[in-house]
């Protein structure tokens, strides 16, 4: 009984936190008489959203498409790169400094370069989302592969296992928990990448919408854009967290599965 109550509280708690946050915000704006162009109240933001829901949804869809395309490319490339780095010590040693260097570059700095190559619009947004999202995936796959127990490798090699056998029977399944954990991080980074590119070089997307709203001093609309991005981020994160739990219950030794089934 108490554990069921606790579980209910766990489900309800995020909503309670969000509600308290919004109510405090609203109360503060009203009580302190903050001007809408400094900080609009949640109700004003919601009104702006309802008023402009047509264009907002259209731009949101555009951002979502760019994000998902960049993310999909990031997964493909990240997994391939991770497998290559994780299976060869030489490649690992050779590529690691380059990758670390690449990852240290703030991607905003690359967007103008991408505009030069890809022009203004969706390709640049997709490319930026891709560039931000592949790295965590590659690193996590490589880590999963590199941490296979040497004894297990010996057992399989003395059975006549090929490199491909080791990869598909042991390496990749072992890397799955790392992989799914990295997807959650990467999808969020892909959103950031897409929106950054849209604010710099695009005529569509939530990033562009917010830039427009800002230049016209339509602050509530800007905030509506921020909220839409946040909500899309949370929803995609939750989807990948759910997939992760489904696919790699063994990595947590069944703890999550018990929670899900036992309640």
């Amino acid at each position, binding site marked *: 009984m108490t554990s069921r109550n606790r579980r209910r509280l766990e489900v309800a708690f995020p909503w309670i936190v969000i509600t308290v946050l919004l109510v405090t915000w609203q109360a503060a704006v009203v009580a302190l008489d903050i001007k809408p162009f400094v900080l609009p109240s949640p109700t004003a933001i919601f009104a702006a959203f309802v008023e402009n829901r047509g264009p907002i949804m259209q731009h949101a869809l555009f951002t979502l498409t760019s994000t998902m395309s960049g993310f999909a490319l990031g997964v493909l490339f990240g997994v391939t790169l991770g497998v290559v780095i994780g299976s060869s010590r030489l490649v690992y040693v050779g590529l690691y400094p380059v990758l670390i260097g690449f990852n240290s570059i703030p991607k905003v700095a690359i967007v103008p370069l991408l505009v030069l190559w890809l022009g203004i619009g969706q390709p640049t947004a997709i490319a930026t989302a891709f560039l931000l999202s592949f790295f965590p995936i590659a690193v996590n796959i490589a880590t999963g592969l590199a941490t296979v127990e040497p004894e297990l490798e010996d057992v399989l090699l*003395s059975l*006549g296992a090929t490199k491909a056998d080791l990869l598909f029977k042991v390496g990749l399944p072992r890397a799955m928990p790392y992989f799914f954990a990295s997807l959650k991080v990467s999808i969020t980074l892909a959103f950031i990448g897409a929106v950054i590119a849209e604010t710099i070089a695009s005529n569509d997307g939530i990033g562009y919408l917010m830039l427009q709203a800002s230049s016209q001093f339509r602050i509530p609309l800007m905030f509506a854009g921020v909220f839409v991005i946040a909500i899309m981020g949370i929803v995609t994160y939750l989807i990948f967290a759910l997939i992760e739990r489904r696919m790699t219950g*063994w990595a947590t030794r069944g703890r999550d599965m018990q929670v899900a089934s036992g309640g």
Partner: protein
Amino acid sequence: MPEFVSLQDVSLNYDVSESSLALSGTTMSIKRGQFAAVVGPSGCGKSSLMKLVTGLKRSTSGTVSVAGNKVNGPLKIVGMAFQNPTLLPWRRLLSNLMLPLEIVQPHRGRLRAHRDEYVERARDLLRTVGLEEFEDRYPWMLSGGMQQRANLCRSLIHEPELLMLDEPFGALDAFTREELWGVLQSIWMTKKFTTILVTHDLREAAYLADVIFVMSARPGRVIATHPVDLPRPRTIETTFDPHFIDIVHKIRNEIAQVRNEGKAAAARTLKAV
């Protein structure tokens, strides 16, 4: 009986730049179907010996041959089990057991079409070690002893000609260990695969083996060979047999002596430096 595993004056150097050898001048020969045990002080190169025989490592000098062929790459017929059970946590027990069948020919090619036959074989093995009820469990739901039984089954599922065991029962309690000696002995007596067992437990060696090789401290080589001619099947009662105790006692003294010599040699080199 023809000899199945043979090492001629084998030495092994892990680090070419260093002159320190892990094994030096090791010679041993094991007949087909024989159960051999290797004992010796820690760090004397027993695990290295296993790697040489299975072809996972190349010898620096000397020749290793198995079944009449010189070993110069990983063998493809070996069953191996280590102290650490290394079962795959994402596979259920039965599917863990079947892993070698997905790799070794000819089973690999036949597995899809003859799945039922192989599943039956895996179940039979699980029955012999008393795990038949657990085939649908994940390894992490089993105790250490149960995992080690499963590990033993996995090393035997493809009916290897050569079984290599490196301290497989090292992490188990005394009762489970003695029980598994019996299990291993009875499987071996029906299948008669050639076996090399590395162990620190001299009673384990004397219980299971036909012949015991004693190795010197690093660099390791074989300093004594003891045939164990006690009748089979041996039981825990056998371990109280005066002849059994005699063998264990003799080997114990030999190892104590090489350990002391090893320490003295190390002290001399320290002084020289």
